[in-house]
């Protein structure tokens, strides 16, 4: 992984690696939905599983967030893990950023990580917290290029769950990638919600948004809308058009009918990040500060299951990928 802690604000002071006591005991604190969501949370769990088998971890635990829960409930979840002897605690989802920031100083011998996290108090760095981020824009760039390469109408779409800067990162990369292939391409953009997180759990909204884009001429639609994405796939099936999945390889998890319309997925390897973090702890050098998982370390990428991408497309994507890794292409993070 590309450890940003030195490339960033170089605020990172003399931080000694956290010394956990005894064997690693890992806890995952899930976002709303918890394990079984076939996406974000499940991916983190897969990382834990892999680490558990490889490193022979026996004592692991999980907890999940509820709807409309308050900040102190999240904090209590983390403290409860720490109090019961867990010394590696991963908050899955950026909603845990504040809670981890508050709790971490009280448990200096526990290694914390927040996936998609950020440090809400940047002038006051916690040495025992790792923020695991992803270069979603890079992965999105590639699927944008894929969409533009295989679009027949010259119009493609993007459906975001909630219009926040995280999802805008997907949009920015996607648009840039598409325009790189075809400068005249038209990219339709719809956000299901402007700020209400319900946008990630609204399949009807996803379906309506995607149907609108297909009706307006798009033939490939990329979604970054969580569970609402199933609605996007439904729309693709109904319109007999194509779609691009997100986070995990959704060709593998979607229903058989939907899978036939998912030409690729933008991979965001939460499992890799989780596994990597646990590994760093087991290795005695727990990650600290900001870590961004990029194309270079396969932290993000694209899938080819189903063989929808033509060899030419794949060749183009691989070319772009190399250029991004080499720094020849600078992928924007905001639209």
């Amino acid at each position, binding site marked *: 992984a590309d450890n940003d802690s030195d490339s960033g604000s170089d605020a990172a002071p003399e931080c000694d690696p956290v010394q956990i006591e005894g064997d690693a005991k890992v806890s995952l604190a899930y976002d709303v939905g918890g394990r079984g969501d076939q996406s974000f949370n499940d991916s983190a769990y897969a990382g834990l599983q892999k680490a558990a088998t490889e490193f022979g971890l026996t004592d692991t635990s999980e907890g999940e967030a509820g709807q*409309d829960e308050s900040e102190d*409930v999240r904090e209590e979840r983390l403290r409860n893990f720490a109090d019961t002897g867990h010394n590696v605690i991963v908050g899955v989802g950026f909603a845990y950023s*504040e809670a981890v920031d508050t709790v971490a100083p009280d448990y200096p011998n526990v290694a914390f990580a927040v996936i998609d996290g950020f440090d809400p108090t940047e002038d006051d760095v916690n040495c025992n917290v790792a923020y695991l981020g992803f270069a979603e824009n890079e992965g999105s760039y590639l699927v944008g290029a894929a969409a533009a390469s295989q679009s027949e109408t010259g119009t493609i779409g993007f459906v975001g769950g909630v219009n926040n800067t995280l999802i805008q990162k997907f949009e920015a990369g996607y648009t840039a990638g598409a325009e790189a292939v075809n400068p005249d391409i038209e990219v339709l953009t719809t956000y299901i919600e402007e700020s209400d997180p319900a946008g990630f759990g609204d399949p009807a909204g996803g379906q309506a948004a995607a149907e609108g884009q297909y009706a307006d001429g798009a033939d490939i639609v990329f979604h970054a809308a969580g569970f609402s994405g199933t609605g996007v796939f439904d729309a693709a099936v109904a319109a007999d058009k194509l779609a691009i999945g997100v986070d995990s390889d959704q060709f593998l998890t979607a229903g058989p009918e939907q899978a036939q319309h998912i030409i690729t997925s933008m991979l965001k390897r939460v499992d890799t990040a989780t596994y990597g973090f646990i590994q760093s702890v087991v290795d005695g050098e727990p990650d600290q500060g900001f870590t961004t998982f990029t194309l270079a370390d396969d932290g993000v990428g694209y899938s080819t299951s189903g063989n929808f991408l033509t060899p030419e497309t794949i060749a183009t994507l691989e070319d772009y990928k190399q250029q991004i890794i080499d720094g020849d292409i600078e992928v924007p993070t905001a639209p």
Partner: protein
Amino acid sequence: MKGLTPRRVLDTVVGSLLPPLVAVVAAMVATSVLIAAFGGSPGSFLEVIFSVPNDRVLLSIINQSAMLSISGIAAAIGFRMGLFNIGVEGQYIVGSCAGAFFAGSGLVPGPLNILATLVVAAAAGAAYASIAGLLRVFRGVSEVISAIMLNYIALTMAGYLVTKYGQASGYTFTTERLPLDAQPLGFKIFPDAPGDVWALSSLAIILGIGYWFLISRTRFGFELRVTGESETAARASGVNTKKMTLLVMALSGAVAGLVWMPAYFGSVHTFGTPENFQAGLGFIGLAVALLGRNRTLGIFFAAALFAFLSGQSNNLQSAGIAKDVIDITQGITVLAVVVAYEVVGRRRAKTEAERVARQLDAEREGAAA
């Protein structure tokens, strides 16, 4: 009060304490049956719910019940006048948003900022509630329907304002952080536990007493209650019910505007959806008011019960039960308690009628003799 016979006392106890008790038990039983019906273990459900919470959870329960109490009081003010202010949810979002923007701006220095912010939050809540009040009084729009619409609008508006005028924080936006000098110290009741009872949680007690005094002692409160019981009688007695509707709606909204202030000043210090803001308190407040029969003590009790159940439900995970079951328990409690009060109320009316008739008969016989 005169005539405090043992019989009366028993009546009061049976009449006001038994129904909630029966309701809670009934709700627990119903939830357990449901869990068992789907192959879960009601035993572990009850075990988790009735386990002793640790100090931190206890603190959280206290703080949550304070906020729920305020929300309940906001709803109760409307209920007492027969206004169903389902808009508490939207009003407290608006109040929280306005308050946090104001406090974060640091326009007023130091601790005075707290007071000023409370005024701003209450005013914003009142103003927002007044939209529903005005629509009802001047256009005859049911406050229930307009408030539902306003709830959605509030959420969207708050999101818009924070995105447009707030600052980036991670992937979303929040208001500016509350200046340090305006962060009040809480009550450290457990020295060993992190966190405290938020300073402004005491607002619940102040508002509770104020509400009780207003409703049961003042002329305004009397007129408010009369309007709720019989609008026609109120009007004939000289109450301007339109003005009353506007005032009460605004008052309810003002209290609603304060709902989240304890959390804001106590721990969160910034407003931004969804992470930094706890939504949903307004809806539960309605249930709290209903369960507490719109009485101060009842509201405190109901808020504590709801906060306790929610606090404990976070551990249901370990028992393999979805924590959502606690909503079922809460909903059934509300339903059961109103049924129980209804039954008790009918009984009471019957016994009172009998008592009056007996007395009259005795008088008649006395006169005949």
